[in-house]
């Protein structure tokens, strides 16, 4: 199983600034291909690029409404075109993930116009290169509709208190840094988008964003390249021969520049949320990020981790207490849901677990469990085409090429001394506490017995 993952992927230049990576995999019943456009993360354009995938998927020349496009994809056996914009460090990446059944599981008795994968790529080309335009720019109705949806999505963050608290932590911690720009923009910047400004960004993306295309499945590199003929010819028409491509860099701050920045806010909710952001001094492009990944696993990455066992199991302070690493900017988040009066004890318990690793207080058993858990997570990647594609896309962007299996080997070679060093490099930056002030129990329902 590891041979496939270790195989060097074929890297094939398609047109200026555009490369195809083919990862052969014969265990899936689907073909998967991902297109990634890398752009600089900027406050002026973040909302535009957040909107772009949804406006494009709203309707094209050939499939002018959402219903037309949905029917087309249903006919292609529930094929998917999923577009989104996300943050990779201080870059904003617009991706389109396409998935369809592999040709050999299409029922032979059905009548189809040709290979499913080619039909799906044709539909995608229509969506990407032939959007529905009015007066030379995007349809104002579609842009307005998606602006409203984006604003809804930005506001909806508050429905999930855990992720809301993390987003507030981000705003506080990265106030003066590019990383503080949300990949969805703000409500204000979303409201300011016009069909013309969005169209300018669209043209800019097609002409200047580096494009990486990642295919996972049974087809050969030649077969994928030839299926991409229409995509290549369309994209080339937007590109000069030697285009000035974007190459966004992420500013890494390896150590917190100030004493712990504390922020507290209150809300009428029953559970309080405690979130701490740390500078880690470790990023993917360093080449030895696997050490930090293991440190995170040991600290708060699983139900065998120090935070889970101490803060939840031993002290009974919370239901969830976990840590999450960010690999491009060099950040670690710790998040837990607690009673408001347990804040000091939870802070102390979290600090004690980081100190324990720094002091080398790591049992063989927990170190082994952390390694096994992380290695297992890497090996699982092989079971998902999307996970494989995302793994390699992130590593290519960081200039490394290790496979999940090679990374697993590196993790197994880590020592407790490595963990001590990771803990020593960790510095607290910002603590955000969302204090829940609601103490009453039930009785919030407001029954309306009237019939309509």
């Amino acid at each position, binding site marked *: 199983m590891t041979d496939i993952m270790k195989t060097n992927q074929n890297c094939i230049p398609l047109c200026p600034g555009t490369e195809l990576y083919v990862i052969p995999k014969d265990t899936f019943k689907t073909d998967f291909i991902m297109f990634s456009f890398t752009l600089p993360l900027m406050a002026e354009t973040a909302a535009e690029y957040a909107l772009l995938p949804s406006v494009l998927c709203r309707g094209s020349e050939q499939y002018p409404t959402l219903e037309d496009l949905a029917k087309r994809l249903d006919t292609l056996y529930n094929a998917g075109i999923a577009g989104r914009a996300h943050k990779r460090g201080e870059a904003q990446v617009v991706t389109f993930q396409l998935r369809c059944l592999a040709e050999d599981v299409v029922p032979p008795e059905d009548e189809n116009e040709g290979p499913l994968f080619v039909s799906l790529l044709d539909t995608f080309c229509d969506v990407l290169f032939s959007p529905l335009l009015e007066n030379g720019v995007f349809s104002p109705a579609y842009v307005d509709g998606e602006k409203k949806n984006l604003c809804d999505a930005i506001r909806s963050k508050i429905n999930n208190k855990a992720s809301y608290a993390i987003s507030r932590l981000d705003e506080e911690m990265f106030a003066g840094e590019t990383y503080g720009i949300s990949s969805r923009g703000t409500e204000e910047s979303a409201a300011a988008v016009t069909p013309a400004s969005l169209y300018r960004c669209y043209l800019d993306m097609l002409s200047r964003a580096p494009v990486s295309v990642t295919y996972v499945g049974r087809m050969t590199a030649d077969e994928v390249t030839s299926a991409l003929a229409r995509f290549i010819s369309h994209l080339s028409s937007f590109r000069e021969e030697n285009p000035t491509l974007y190459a966004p860099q992420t500013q890494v701050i390896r150590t917190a520049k100030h004493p712990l920045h504390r922020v507290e806010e209150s809300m009428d909710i029953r559970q309080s949320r405690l979130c701490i952001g740390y500078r880690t001094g470790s990023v993917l492009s360093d080449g030895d990020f696997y050490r930090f990944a293991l440190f995170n696993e040991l600290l708060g990455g699983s139900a065998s981790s120090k935070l889970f066992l101490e803060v939840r199991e031993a002290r009974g302070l919370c*239901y969830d207490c976990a840590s999450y690493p960010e690999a491009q900017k060099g950040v670690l988040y710790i998040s837990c849901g607690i009673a408001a009066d347990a804040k000091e004890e939870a802070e102390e318990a979290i600090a004690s677990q980081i100190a324990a690793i720094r002091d080398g207080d790591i049992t063989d058993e927990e170190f082994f469990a952390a390694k096994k858990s992380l290695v297992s997570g890497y090996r699982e990647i092989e079971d998902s085409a999307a996970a494989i594609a995302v793994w390699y896309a992130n590593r290519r962007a960081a200039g490394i090429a290790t496979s999940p299996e090679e990374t697993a080997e590196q993790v197994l070679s880590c020592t407790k001394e490595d963990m001590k060093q990771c803990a020593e490099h960790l510095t607290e930056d910002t603590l955000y506490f969302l204090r829940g002030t609601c103490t009453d129990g039930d009785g919030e329902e407001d029954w309306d017995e009237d019939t309509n």
Partner: protein
Amino acid sequence: MKTQIEHLTSDRLHQSYTRIRHKSGLTVCVLPKRAAVTYGVLGVNFGANDRIFRMTDDAVYAPMLTTETMPADVFHIPSGCAHFLEHKMFAERGGEDAIARFARFGANADAYTTPDLTAYLYSTTEDPYAPLEILLDFVMNPYFTEENVARERSIIAQEIRMYDDSPMQTGYYNLMAALYHTHPIRDNVGGTEETIRDITPAVLYRCHEAFYRPDNMVLSVSGNVTPEEVLAVCDRCLPDTVTANRTQRIYLPEPKTIVTDHVTAQAGAAAPLLYFGVKDNCLSSDPTERLRHASAVDILNDILFCKSSAIFSDLYAKGWINGRFGAEYEHNETYSYTLISAETAYPAETADAIRTYLADRVRLHDITDAQFARCRRVMYASSVTAYESTEDMALDCLDSTMDGTELFSSVDIMMQITKDDLIDALDALYRPECMAVSVVT
């Protein structure tokens, strides 16, 4: 009883698996697949809905509906019991946690509780049999003390509060309470901070004894396993014989009517959340009949509410709904409903639009061949891709086996559904007097 083995194959999906009725009474499904991850799940037919039971000779696991007076010897257990038991099963003698035993073999373990069942699961990219032994061992051997139960109570209280702060959860449970008069689907799976105070070691031991019996469980394993070796593990870990079941679960009769057709609550939602529910009274104790009905409703709902549906396009174009719109259908022996959810600034208008849409019988009866053909393609593709993941395979097989059917019959029945079946389901289910709306702002 001797162990019985059967091999089940789907020509349509090019898949097969082995179903074993182990001599202990445990039903075991083994789904070999070449994959990195082996996934095993042990499901116990004891969920949040099982709140009343009695111990009696001549008991059957199927729920008994009381229509007259409740027998005197019944146990009423507090809401949240099945979930509390799930948490506490991981405690072991000597203060150890079962999670640590799994970790020693490089396996991850987890568990979840639904209204209908409790599931314990592990996944591993290494030896699949050692964690399987731990799974069968820890789920069969409870260890509850006053002290460990008290500590768990504070952890679960935090879990309850976390969900209490979710507007989505508030909207969902308000809808269930609007649709159901007595059925425990009204109540939070985790219970409340009040009810979990009444959960003691004695209550947990009683539930474990009543329900955690091999003949009331299903094991489903998918990945790098063989039926022979899974069976060998079962032989080592489980009893040789089935002991007579004495557990009779009891449900109160549930009227066919709804409680109220409208409920609102304030929960600090960013935009109003609409939960539109339809109580389905087409309940059956026959698993195949249930599956047939559920398959028809699933196809129907897909045609009615998916992204290519008329109502989705209409409401989306108007700007009343965003991408967070969809319909789901839950179907079980004692309760069944369709739930349509939306985030909308126009909850009343959107609810009215759904009512009007469902009332337009002439148009709905005119489901076109093209719509039906597209939908069958979607369902077929979903079935094929469901077997990409060992997790999905193991869980789907668990669910269908616990429901009393089997994995492949769902695809076969799905492909047999005709347009007439959809019309029948439509007329039986979408009745105005069975519809209720819950709005959270």
